[in-house]
Each structure stands twice: as structure tokens, then as C-alpha cells.
């Protein structure tokens, strides 16, 4: 328990003194996660909308697999990305291993299924509501998708935030592909893992509290921004 308390005070202290190391790894955490989030969202949302509006033979199977891939174990993703990016792997020549880019790639792989599944869940409901109207208007696939995405934007926020949460708290994969290299690929989660291994639980907890604070702060900010839109039934 003492550790919890000490962790809290150290977290406050680190933040108040604008500890340069903390700033650096926090900034890197945010940068990697937000980049991954933008890419993953750009892939997952249209995919989710497509799965909602388009009937094809293997649709149910694809959705089930997408759901299942939410359970993709990060360490395995990390390993696979490592094997592909490693010098002896097919993309080794790009020299991406142990760079933030590699971390972004791993995170994208991890959160795309999560965002797509959750987004599909709410877009499907919206599609049921809109189905008759849009079909009767003879809209193209692309128009269906963009209408759903636009009118469902509030609900899609939850999907994106879930992805953000998963990505910023992720450690298994980015430890493997990023390598937790000081000043290069160390982020909050890998730093926490490091301090835990060192037995400095208080510092690990302090970093953890900073990370939680960051995640909560960003969520609250987004919700607050969302609220400034006109309050309506959607």
C-alpha cells in the first residue's frame, strides 16, 4: 500500500516538475498511439460500414473472425511483426525494426479488429434504421458508407476511444518490435515494465498514474468537445 501512496506523490511530483524524461516518453507514447489510432480508424471504420451494408456470402464468417481477432494476443502480433521486419525477414531492408514506425504497425494490427467490431455493432443498428430509405434512393455503396459514418459519428467515438485505450496501454507487442530503447523507442508502458522489473514499484506506479491520467484526460476532453456540439438525440 505504501507503494501506491508513494507512487501517487511521485506521479504528482514528476508532472509538476515537468520531468524531462517523463515528458519525452509521454510525448512518444502519445505520438505513436495517435498515429496508430488515425491509421487504424481510417481502415476500420470504412470496413465496419462496408460489413454493415454489404451482403456477401462469407459476411457472417468475416464478422465472427473480426470479433475473434479482438482477442489477437499482442505478444503474438509483436512476434509476427518482428519476424517480418527483422533483417532476415521479407521487409528487413526497410530497417524499420526498433523504430516508432514498427510500434505503430503493431498497434494498428492490434486495434483495427477492435475498432471495426465495435463500430460494426452500432453501424449495423443504424443501417437497420436507414436501410429502407437508402435502398429506395438507389444510393451507391460508397454513399451508403459515408452516410452511415457521418450520421453515426457519435457512436463511432466509443469505438475509436476503445482503440485508443487499448493502444496506449499496450506493452507486449511494442516491447518486442520497439525494443524499449532509451531515447528512441521507450514509451510509458515499456518504461513501466522496466521499472517493475527493476523492483521500483513506486516509480512504475507513478508512471502508471501519469498514463492513466493521460488516457482519462484525453477521453474527457473528447467527450467535452462532443458535448459542445448541439445536444440532440444523436
Amino acid at each position, binding site marked *: 500500500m505504501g507503494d501506491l501512496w508513494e507512487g501517487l506523490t511521485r506521479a504528482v511530483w514528476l508532472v509538476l516538475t515537468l520531468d524531462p524524461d517523463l515528458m519525452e516518453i509521454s510525448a512518444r507514447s502519445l505520438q505513436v498511439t495517435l498515429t496508430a489510432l488515425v491509421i487504424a480508424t481510417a481502415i476500420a471504420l470504412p470496413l465496419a460500414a462496408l460489413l454493415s451494408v454489404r451482403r456477401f456470402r462469407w459476411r457472417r464468417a468475416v464478422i465472427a473472425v473480426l470479433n475473434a481477432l479482438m482477442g489477437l494476443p499482442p505478444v503474438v502480433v509483436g512476434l509476427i511483426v518482428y519476424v517480418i521486419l527483422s533483417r532476415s525477414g521479407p521487409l528487413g531492408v526497410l530497417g524499420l525494426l526498433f523504430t516508432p514506425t514498427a510500434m505503430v504497425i503493431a498497434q494498428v494490427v492490434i486495434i483495427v479488429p477492435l475498432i471495426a467490431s465495435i463500430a460494426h455493432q452500432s453501424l449495423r443498428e443504424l443501417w437497420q*434504421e*436507414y436501410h*429502407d*430509405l437508402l*435502398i*429506395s*434512393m*438507389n*444510393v451507391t455503396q460508397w*454513399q451508403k458508407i459515408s*452516410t452511415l459514418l457521418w*450520421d*453515426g459519428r457519435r457512436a463511432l467515438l466509443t469505438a475509436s476511444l476503445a482503440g485508443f485505450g487499448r493502444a496506449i496501454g499496450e506493452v507486449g507487442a511494442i516491447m518486442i518490435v520497439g525494443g524499449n530503447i532509451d531515447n528512441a523507442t521507450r514509451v510509458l508502458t515499456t518504461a513501466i515494465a522496466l521499472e517493475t522489473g527493476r523492483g521500483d514499484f513506486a516509480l512504475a506506479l507513478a508512471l502508471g498514474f501519469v498514463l492513466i491520467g493521460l488516457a482519462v484526460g484525453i477521453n474527457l476532453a473528447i467527450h467535452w468537445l462532443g458535448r459542445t456540439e*448541439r445536444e*440532440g*438525440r*444523436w
Partner: protein
Amino acid sequence: MTELFPLVLEGACTRRGGKDLAGPVDLRLEGQGASIIIGPNGSGKTSLLRLIHGAARLSAGTITWACPTDTARHHQAFVFQRPVMLRRSVAQNIAYPLRLRGVGRRAALDQARDWGVRVGLADCLDLPAPVLSGGEQQKLALARALITEPRVLFLDEPCAALDGAATRDIETILADAKAAGTRIIMTTHDIGQARRLADEVIFLLHGRVHDRARADIFFDAPATSEAAAFLRGDIVQ
């Protein structure tokens, strides 16, 4: 202008959960006037309308327009019994079909406002559509259908939630459209309205066309006892 009609249904049928919702129906529709579909609740009016329009799956039979189906679809509009409100403002809802056709934002919204005023929604153009009252939603759906100036207009009980004045206004708009050459295919439970608008009547029972006749003949001397009972407001079998 390509010709859409005649439209020919042969053994057309839409099925769901092992039940024929409408059909099998054989029908030939010519290009003029207003056909009013009437029949008891659950007789398949909505299903038939959706089937002709292409919004319900054709489980058996054929439906043939005089032109490629895609062209025909492009010139149709449908007003649903239970209007679907997009989660946008009223004006944006009405402008939506124009935006789909590539009309610019400003131009589409301007036209939408015009139409909104015409159907009597002047006061609510900037409200979110889902908060509208039942009648207002129906007016919105009408404006949204009319704005593309469709050549075929499907209407599923478009005036069920409207007050007397609004009903009269809408009937005038529909009569004008008909005069301008729009083909109207509509259902209603309001026999008075059917009388006012119909050129021909299609009487549906258990998903099938039970009777079909010129309006004056149908209302004055219905050919079948069921139609007569229906017009009297009796229970039909």
C-alpha cells in the same frame, strides 16, 4: 426521355420467413395517372409497393420495366408508411437526395428550404429531424421524395398522420404532380382520399390482387363482394 412504362409483373412474389408477404401478382401498369392500392391491414400493400419499387426481394416471378431497371430506379421515389428520419436537420434531410445526385451543398439546401415551406415545415427547417411530430415527419418524407421530381412516386399511406388542411395541401401537390406527368402508386386507408385521387384502384387481399378496376367503377359498383364489404367498412373474410 426514355420510357419507363409499361411495367409488367408476372408471378411476382416476395417471401419472408416462409410466408408470402405479397404475391404471386400479375400486373401491367401503364404510364399515366394514379393507381391506389387498398386492402385490409396486413393484406400486403406495403410489401407490394416495396416489391415493385425494388426495395423488397423478388422471391419468384419477374418485374419488367420498359427500360433497364437501373434507369427506372433512378426516376423513382418512395414515401414510407413509417418515415425514416436521417439524424440530421430537417433541411439536410430534404436536401439529402439532391446531394446524392451531386448537387452542390448551397443549391441543395436552398431547394430543400423551398420544398420544406411548400409542405408546411417552414418553422422547423433547422430542427433535428427525429424530434419532429408524427405529421411533420410525414411532410418531411413527402418533400424529400418530391424534391428529385421523380417520374414514379410511391406513397405508403402518406397522409395517415396529417391534419385536414395538410392532407388537402398534399393532395393538391400530388394532383399537380400527376398533371405534370408523374406516375403515382399509392396506398391509403382513407376511402375519401382514394376517391379523390385514384384513376384506378387495385384491391389487395391476402397478398394477391383480388380486384382491379377504374376508380369510378370500383367505388360505385365493386365487382366482388369482398371489395364491397371493405368499402362498407366490414370485416373482409
